[in-house]
């Protein structure tokens, strides 16, 4: 394994070129992800422009006490992910596994908090179509906000879940010593995806949770 790990594939001129191709491939995928979430952000922008009061009132029903700590949890996970990639670059396999596990734990922590939050949303009758009750004359407009809230945070949670699964696979590979030498690029690519998921939340948090407090 260690022999093949240091030899680049035949279609590349050098190992460096191969690693750059790996990184560019992930960035290409992330560009499609930017536009995937971007389309929904566009919907949000359009709806908020038309129903500003309903959106502020609806946002006020979400709890910063859930969204704020969850943002902090994801930032912590990005920090441990960055340290995991550093450990991989330095060839420190044990540290790599430890930081990957820490990142997985933060990712799971985020999902647990999100689960409790969804439960609270359900209890407070904020789930459009299925369990929705709104006092006042802008119920329909508030419902649009919560559609966007559940679609955006739901798709984000799916991305976090996929990230946790990928991180688990990478952690097992690392623990078996399969990411030594030049194979550390696997950890770097995974890191790019994980950091991107963090960036999505960095925008979702103020757009969804913070517009109704002033």
């Amino acid at each position, binding site marked *: 394994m260690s022999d093949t790990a240091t030899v680049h594939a035949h279609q590349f001129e050098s190992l460096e070129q191969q690693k*750059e191709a790996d990184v560019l491939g992930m960035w290409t995928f992330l560009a*499609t*992800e930017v*536009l995937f979430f*971007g389309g929904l952000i566009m919907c949000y922008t*359009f709806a908020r422009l038309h129903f500003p009061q309903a959106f502020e009132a609806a946002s006020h029903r979400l709890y910063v006490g859930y969204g704020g700590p969850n943002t902090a949890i994801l930032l912590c996970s990005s920090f441990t992910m*960055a340290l995991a990639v550093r450990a991989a670059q330095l060839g420190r396999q044990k540290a790599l596994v430890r930081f990957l596990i820490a990142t997985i734990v933060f990712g799971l922590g985020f999902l647990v908090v999100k689960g409790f939050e969804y439960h609270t949303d359900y209890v407070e009758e904020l789930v459009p179509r299925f369990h929705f009750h709104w006092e006042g004359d802008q119920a329909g407009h508030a419902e649009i906000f919560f559609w966007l809230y559940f679609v955006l945070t739901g798709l984000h949670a799916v991305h976090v879940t996929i990230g946790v699964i990928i991180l688990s696979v990478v952690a097992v590979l690392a623990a078996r010593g399969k990411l030594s030498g030049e194979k550390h690029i696997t950890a770097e690519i995974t890191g790019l995806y994980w*950091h991107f998921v963090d*960036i999505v939340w960095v925008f979702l948090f103020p757009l969804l949770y*913070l517009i109704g407090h002033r």
Partner: protein
Amino acid sequence: MSSHTILPTKTYLVIFLLLMALLGFTVGVAFLDLGRFNLPAAMAIAVVKAVLIVMFFMHVKYASRLTWVFAAAGFFWLAIMLIFTMTDYVSRG
């Protein structure tokens, strides 16, 4: 192309602490009444956080020009979608 730059742990720690401070800042700003400037302030802070993550955690600051282009492309097209769509809606009579 030299091999990947390996950043010191301290750099990551500083970026992480900056991100946490900006999180506190954005929550604080949300509770102030800045009139029409609440949204631009929140988005400006989010953009700063995203740039810190992209540049340092995702190593784009230390990457090749080609990686810069690939990393910027998605955000560039997103800007086209948002700006062109909104100029249409905002300018309708």
